[in-house]
């Protein structure tokens, strides 16, 4: 446990000091302030515009950090062989992977926290629904981070990144695609979408990043469902990543 905490804090420190993450965070904050400006041109819809655009920017930033970090994290460690020094210590490959994941989790948590505090200050609300929306964005990012990490153990980082983007889009369109498949009455399409529901996380179930959910917060049942689904996907893909990484030759 101590090794995981040490690795997590070191990874977090390393990533915070890298400019790429700060640039993404700055861009996301810029979009939030841009939405504030655009709201001035609307008729009494400034809060709605700020909430919708601001949360979209937050999610974009968090998802970008999750996918880039997850896709390139292991590849960079293997290319530069920085993991060899760590793994020569009494640290298992599983602990190494979890430690790295935990460091990225801390990074995502910081990013979402900063963005949420900015949103809260601009909206003038520090209520529970705001933090529920922030949690849903964090949950989505962690699922994508875990997927990207798993994919990077099998394919090149760029492919892992692309697959993460596809997963993100598919996860949001699952409901619509299922609807179209059912309407098409094509049995193959229906079966494919039925299988997809088991293989792809349904991000639409906790897609709460809008003004509507700010004033009409999700139910406790939905929040618990989000937490359970998020935890399940993270555990499955981290376990799969660990299984592949444990067998890999670190040449």
């Amino acid at each position: 446990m101590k090794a995981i905490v040490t690795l997590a804090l070191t990874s977090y420190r390393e990533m915070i000091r890298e400019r790429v993450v700060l640039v993404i965070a700055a861009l996301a904050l810029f979009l939030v302030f841009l939405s504030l400006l655009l709201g001035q041109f609307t008729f009494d819809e400034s809060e709605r515009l700020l909430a919708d655009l601001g949360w979209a920017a937050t999610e974009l930033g968090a998802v970008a950090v999750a996918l880039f970090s997850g896709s390139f994290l292991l590849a960079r460690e293997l290319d530069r062989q920085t993991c060899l020094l760590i793994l020569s210590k009494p640290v298992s490959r599983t602990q190494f992977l979890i430690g790295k994941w935990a460091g990225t989790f801390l990074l995502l948590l910081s990013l979402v926290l900063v963005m949420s505090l900015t949103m809260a200050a601009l909206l003038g609300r520090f209520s529970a629904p705001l933090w529920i929306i922030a949690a849903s964005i964090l949950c989505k990012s962690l699922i994508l981070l875990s997927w990207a990490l798993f994919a990077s153990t099998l394919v090149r980082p760029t492919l892992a990144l692309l697959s993460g983007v596809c997963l993100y889009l598919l996860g949001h369109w699952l409901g619509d695609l299922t609807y179209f498949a059912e309407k098409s009455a094509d049995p193959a399409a229906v079966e494919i979408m039925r299988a997809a529901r088991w293989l792809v996380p349904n991000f639409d179930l906790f897609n709460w990043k809008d003004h509507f959910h700010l004033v009409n917060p999700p139910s406790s049942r939905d929040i618990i469902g989000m937490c359970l689904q998020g935890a399940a996907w993270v555990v499955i893909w981290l376990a799969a990543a660990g299984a592949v990484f444990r067998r890999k030759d670190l040449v």
Partner: protein
Amino acid sequence: MNLVEVSGLDKTFKGGLFEKSRQVLFDVRFALPAGETCGFVGGNGQGKTTTIKCLFGFIRPDRGEIRFFGRPLGPREKKRIGYMPERPYLYEFLTGREFLRLHWSLVGASGDFPAACESILRRVDLSHAVDKRLRSYSKGMLQRIGLAQALIHSPDLLILDEPMSGLDPDGRLLVKEILREEKARGATIFFSSHLLQDMDELCTHLTVIEAGRILHDGAVASFRNEHPDLEKAFRAWRLKHRGGLP
């Protein structure tokens, strides 16, 4: 007593879609006697780094057994080992002090870290750069901080892959001095190098690898035979077994 025993190590790297499989280690077997400074010599691409990576399980051998302190390598054994890879790429955004604290913490060392850190940095002549980020270090400085993390917890066994690579003459003298000090402390040292002169100066035990096969594993004196130094002994060996230098 042997601190490390390697027997029957084979390794084949599987080819990709259009590449054939390639066997790189053939029945590698050697032992590291306790308290000795052991040199591991071989040309480029002969299997030195692959063998060292197999020792730690970074590369999984197809066959063979490796024992550290009489047991398979586990967390307890790793605490007693200091390792430095061939090209120590490090976390560039950490400072020297943070980097050493990371490894001190991971190895589970007890005691006063600030004192240990100050002591080791003085030994590798990096006290002036301890709070600078590793990305500002020169190649020689990176090599020396890499050595520092291997030594900071006073391990019983040091495994160093080309420890003098990238060092200027002063740096090489410094590393040799450190290795002599570690031997005097009672540590067992296993280091790979291309440079026979370094082996001659420091080693009492020699393992020679060529094309993935161990050609000699024993006292330096027995390899040197009646020759005045290792370089002449190596030339004579080549002449006898391979018909001369390539």
